[in-house]
């Protein structure tokens, strides 16, 4: 049962005196309950644009995106988002950041705290409730951002290269953390990345996008069962899939570079 349907969604930007730039060609994507879809592609292929349209932060030029059969017309608490940049509110503590959406729904404070505490614990930040974002490392800030998005109990979790700014080791730990939470909470996730390892390790499906103007070029299932342990990264199945995706993405990266030099 499909919870997100993207049908013929495209996005082009008008530029004065020139032909409009097409960032995203008409794209179709069906996301079913509990899917963990990772979207891979070269820079500028429109993968973030697609995610932002689903989030309601950008508006498509044609087609429509539907969540549970309802047309997406703007951002909402039913689609939690984690951004690549650190977007915690710097004037709020970790606890109040996680409570932000709950307070918006006018939940009683006691209930807010109960929900927030449970997610703070799930992301391993117990003891840091009264820290301000600037007192946290990048990884801890993204954990808080994840807890903040999950606390709203969204239908979907949208993630735009959330670990892109983190160092390699922290990123791998964050992948395991997110995967563990997804396995436990059975969320539906749309995850944009340009890291192939990350896409294969976490995704139940991997979507590869072409160079600009972006379109979905490949949409394949990852044939590895959940729960996944980090050691799957060293298995044959993982290596084979990674090799295939590396080829697919590489072609697009080269195409994108050619296009930018032309």
């Amino acid at each position, binding site marked *: 049962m499909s919870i997100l349907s993207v049908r013929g969604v495209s996005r082009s930007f008008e530029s004065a005196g020139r032909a409009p730039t097409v960032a995203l060609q008409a794209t179709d994507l069906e996301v079913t309950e509990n899917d963990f879809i990772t979207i891979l592609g070269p820079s500028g292929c429109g993968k973030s644009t697609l995610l932002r349209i689903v989030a309601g*932060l950008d508006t498509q030029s044609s087609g429509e995106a539907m969540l549970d059969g309802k047309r997406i017309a703007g951002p909402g608490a039913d689609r939690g988002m984690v*951004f690549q940049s650190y*977007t915690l*509110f710097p*004037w709020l503590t970790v606890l109040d950041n996680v409570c932000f959406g709950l307070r*918006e*729904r006018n939940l009683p404070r006691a209930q807010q705290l109960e929900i927030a505490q449970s997610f703070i614990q799930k992301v391993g930040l117990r003891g840091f409730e009264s820290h301000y974002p600037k007192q946290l490392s990048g990884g801890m800030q993204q954990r808080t951002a994840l807890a903040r*998005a999950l606390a709203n109990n969204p239908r979907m979790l*949208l993630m735009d290269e959330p670990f892109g700014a983190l160092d390699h080791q922290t990123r791998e730990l964050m992948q395991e953390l997110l995967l563990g939470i997804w396995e436990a909470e059975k969320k539906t996730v749309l995850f944009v990345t340009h890291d192939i390892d990350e896409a294969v390790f976490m995704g139940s499906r991997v979507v590869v996008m072409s160079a600009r103007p972006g379109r979905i070029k490949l949409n394949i299932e990852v044939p590895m069962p959940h729960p996944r342990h980090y050691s799957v990264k060293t298995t044959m199945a993982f290596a084979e899939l990674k090799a295939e995706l590396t080829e697919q993405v590489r072609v697009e990266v080269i195409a994108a570079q050619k296009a930018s030099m032309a």
Partner: protein
Amino acid sequence: MKPLTPVAPAARVTLGISFFVVFIAIWAVATLGGFVSKTFLADPITMVKSGYTLLTEMGFAKDIGMTVGRVLGGFLIATLVALPLGVMMGAYKPIEAFFEPFISFARYLPASAFIPLLILWAGIGEAQKLAVIFIGSFFQLVLMIAVAVGNTRRDLVEAAYTLGASDSSLVRRVLIPGAAPEIAEILRMVLGWAWTYVIVAELIGASSGIGHMITDSQSLLATDQIIFGIIVIGLIGLISDMLFKLANRKLFPWAALGK
């Protein structure tokens, strides 16, 4: 010296105070040494003595009180109007488009040039003094507050929307708290400017206040009193600035982090 390397707190205080010492020393040498005529510039000792006389015998404390009251009064009125207007302009672009061109023009109107008009309209009473300070600080405040609010990080705005924030709660819960420390800094800066306007207002058509004392002293060629008046203004400015900074640090502990 290495560029941009911070100094230890104790060294900073010592360095800061030593320039005051150097300054007063040069002044003392120039005046007490007889290099500058007493008619033009009083020496530090005479200045302190006549300052004492001013305070104890001539009711200068009341003048100081009047001046401080005028600055705070005019500034408070300007802030009370400028805050909501500045926030609305920063948040809602049509409102900004409506007011911004006029305010940009109005802020270059020199407040002191309004004094003759204001005397005509409001007389030489307190209303005129408050009006000068209001004109001098209001337009600056509005524009700077609007810019501070309008500069809110767009990714924070987007994050708030994806967490279910409505438009009005975006203003209340993101734009205002995010800009608050900068707004507090703006208030601190503009309060400093308000001090220069009040003195100008008191130089013309006033019967009390530090500025009034200075004009009185001018007709007596009492440079010692003039300098004392100027120093008092400087000290009050310094103290209010320090109090403001202290309050900002207490109110917005998060803003000072990681700086």
